[in-house]
């Protein structure tokens, strides 16, 4: 006895929806090359890669959290905290500060996770509260003043390149691949989708939903910590105002990349495409000499345009 199979149209639509971000990226590439002759040069492209590394790394963690139907607003303030801690402990050398930075970031993420799982608070609220607390900690620690960082080891991470690829870009690429693998090849990643898709079904199937959520927020914290280290490396300064607005950038990248805010579907590759779109847009505008103030304005319009386009793909 056979059941009727699902039509090919459903398949195609679902593919297009997921591919939407990549199509947009490709189109953008073409437009950018036309608009400015310097766009498609290796120097410029690698520069774009370097600039999007931070948003991209945060985006990987944010994608995973959003896949479970949650959100993390504290990512930007984690960057701030990590940057000031790196500055404050720089006397102990690059390795120690990096470790310390990542550790503290993971702790913040773990607290987020605890609040969501044990405190049963909505992720929006929990991470909003932690955002305030973490940035406050950064202010407290830094006395509200920027702290210069003089660590040649760290500075190298921010400015050097391996095989012509800027190290931040490499870090992003490696983490991206790891993230993509995590989400498709091992149960942990698939359970994130399951939780976002139907939490109760996952729970009844024996998935340890509490542990999963706790882990994903800790992971997002950790990745924000990596971004914080990259920030300190690139800017050579620790400041409590760092990372302002990074959460919204990351969310924009995630959504542009096709991940649904309700959870259950999406991918880190899409987020990477989304981050690339935002970075390239900024780049084109810079190359065209557009006023940075106008850039924000245009960024807004383009986000709307992109989302509407993506929607019409999925209809």
């Amino acid at each position, binding site marked *: 006895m056979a059941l009727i199979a699902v039509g090919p149209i459903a398949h195609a639509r679902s593919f297009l929806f997921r591919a939407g971000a990549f199509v947009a990226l490709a189109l953008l590439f073409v437009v950018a090359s036309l608009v400015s002759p310097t766009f498609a040069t290796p120097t410029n492209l690698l520069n774009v890669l370097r600039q999007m590394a931070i948003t991209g790394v945060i985006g990987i963690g944010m994608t995973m959290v959003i896949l479970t139907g949650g959100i993390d607003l504290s990512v930007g303030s984690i960057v701030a905290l990590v940057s000031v801690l790196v500055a404050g402990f720089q006397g102990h050398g690059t390795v120690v500060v990096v470790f310390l930075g990542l550790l503290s970031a993971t702790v913040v993420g773990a607290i987020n996770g605890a609040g969501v799982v044990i405190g049963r608070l909505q992720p929006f609220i929990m991470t*909003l509260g932690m955002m305030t*607390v973490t940035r406050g900690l950064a202010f407290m620690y830094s006395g509200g003043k920027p702290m210069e960082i003089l660590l040649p080891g760290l500075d190298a991470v921010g400015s050097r390149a391996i095989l012509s690829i800027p190290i931040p870009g490499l870090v992003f690429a490696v983490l991206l691949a790891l993230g993509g693998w995590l989400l498709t090849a091992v149960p942990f990643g698939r359970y994130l989708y399951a939780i976002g898709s139907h939490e109760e079904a996952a729970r009844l199937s024996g998935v340890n939903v509490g542990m999963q959520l706790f882990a994903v927020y800790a992971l997002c914290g950790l990745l924000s910590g990596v971004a914080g280290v990259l920030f300190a490396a690139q800017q050579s300064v620790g400041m409590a105002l760092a990372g302002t607005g990074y959460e919204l950038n990351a*969310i924009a990248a995630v959504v542009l990349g096709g991940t649904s805010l309700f959870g259950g579907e999406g991918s880190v590759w899409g987020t990477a495409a989304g981050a690339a779109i935002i970075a390239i847009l900024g780049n084109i505008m810079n190359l065209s000499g557009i006023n940075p103030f106008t850039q924000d304005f245009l960024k807004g319009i383009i986000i*709307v345009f992109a989302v509407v386009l993506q929607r019409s793909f999925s209809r």
Partner: protein
Amino acid sequence: MKENVLASETQTEAPAFGRGRSWAQVMERYGILVVFMLLVVASALLSPVFLRPANILNVLRQISITGVIALGMTFVILTAGIDLSVGSVVALVTVLAASFQRLGLVPVLLLGLAVGSAMGLMNGVGIAMGRISPLIMTLAMMYMGRGLAFMYSGGLPIYGIRPAFIQFGNGFTAGIPNSVLYFVALLILSIAVLRFTAFGRFVLAVGSNEEAARLTGVRVSRVKVQVYLLSGIFSGFAGLIYAGQLGIGVALAGLGYELSAIAAVVIGGTSLFGGHGSVFGTFLGAAIVGVTNNLLNLMGIDPLVQDFMKGLIILAAVLINRRRT
């Protein structure tokens, strides 16, 4: 043989209070009030200055601006939406208000409200007709609004705000700061609108179950546009008050106001999923944040520590007041 076959229906909740309210409904109504009272008592104990009229007015004054924004935000969140653009409305309005002072007080006020309305309208249309998620639409609008403010002002403060306008934003009437009067007036108006008008019912219906509301004949798209328009107007008004208080127009104004407003709404018991909540709760939420700030100041706690403490207190308030779904 029963006279009514349905008399044996199973009720899984104890409707113990008049007209059928359950424990959950009662807790929801009064929980945040209890938290607020506790905070007031604690503050009074910790600082002798707290209950002085001058201090209380001060607290009210400080929460008025984000409070007005939060009132508009309440309506938006009640429809299960969100408005991240409110801060940028404030920025744009302060910049334009400072720039067009020569028009006279009333025209400038109208201009501010018009700007807020325009942005709110665009949000509403994008969300209701364009079917763009509120987070994205208002995020984009936030970029656009602040971007415009920066573009227009070149990143520099705009001077020239006239005395009449400063009186409007920063003056006193019968010993009470004007901004407080505006806030209280809008508070009462908002409570009335939500509880006693058809529009208020529609807002709650859309937030509770959009599709069911549509199938009951509620004009969902129109309601959505209206709430974002409302939020824009309120934010515009807040921007006018702020410009009067600052004395200049600056594109950096209003940074972080959206989160303050959302925090006030959520602490006040309104669910981000929409469908239930109260305007008075938002007032209490804003008050809790305001009292907390005030307490920390009065106790002489380092301003740098304050953010940290504020975050802890927000979390504590929400934890205590969370709904058991």
